[in-house]
């Protein structure tokens, strides 16, 4: 779908953020794992370092898809879910407060990048809902 310049600026900016954070996590997985709340770390089925390396790879894949403008809505959906989990498992602090803005950006990219047929289906589904009250008979 053809998009306007603001969409592409947001897409490339978000892509760079995800790619770079992926590289930084690859560099120091233990440091970034330190942001995780202890209760969340206990829930992990794999060691923390491995989980963080997996996160780094996911971030890089998301960033690359956003950058080359392929499956943007899938990448943005994954990014939104990922950021939601980050906010839930680390809490909102001086660092993660910025993730609120990133989350809003990825949701906007998801909606903007959604294929036309899926968007129409959602619209159609919405219109199928029964009206709240019938008009009074005269």
């Amino acid at each position, binding site marked *: 779908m053809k998009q306007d310049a603001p969409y592409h600026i947001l897409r490339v900016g978000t892509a760079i953020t995800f790619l*770079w954070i992926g590289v930084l996590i*690859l560099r120091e997985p233990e440091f970034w794992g330190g942001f995780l709340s202890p209760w969340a770390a206990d829930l992990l089925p794999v060691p923390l370092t491995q989980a963080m390396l997996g996160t780094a790879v996911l971030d890089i894949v998301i960033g690359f898809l956003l950058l080359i403008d392929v499956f943007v809505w899938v990448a943005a959906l994954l990014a939104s879910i990922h950021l939601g989990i980050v906010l839930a498992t680390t809490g909102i602090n001086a660092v993660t407060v910025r993730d609120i803005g990133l989350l809003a950006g990825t949701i906007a990219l998801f909606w903007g990048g959604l294929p036309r047929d899926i968007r129409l289906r959602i619209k159609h589904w919405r219109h199928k809902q029964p009206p709240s009250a019938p008009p009074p008979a005269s």
Partner: protein
Amino acid sequence: MTAFALLFTLSAIGIAETAYLIRERRAGEQPVCPIGGGCHEVLESQYNRTFWIHNDILGFLFYVSMAMLTGLTVAGIGPVFFWMVIAVAQVTGAFVMSAYFFFLQWRVIKAWCFWCLMSAATVAGMVLVFALDRLTSLQTL
């Protein structure tokens, strides 16, 4: 670290730009030319390939490789010094190519392509980052 972040950012901008040009070409559409109107003239000219490969593909490969080299250097994976030597060599080559394409647009085709100029500016930015990084490391000696 700042230099690598800047190089990585410039590489990512280059990837996005060349991926767009490749997509439009493969779809048989003309790319949007935000400033000026010579994009079509330049991109469809006889100079749009180097060694039988489209320039947008060569650019894409260059930027992906630069992003990977910078990323590997920052992450400390593999022979870091070797990655940086390759990166410097690549940027030097890309700068020469950009200067050649600039000359072609100016004197031969006589039309300016926004995307080609943006790519040239991206490569020039990379040279500047390398130069400033070298300068600051020399000053700290």
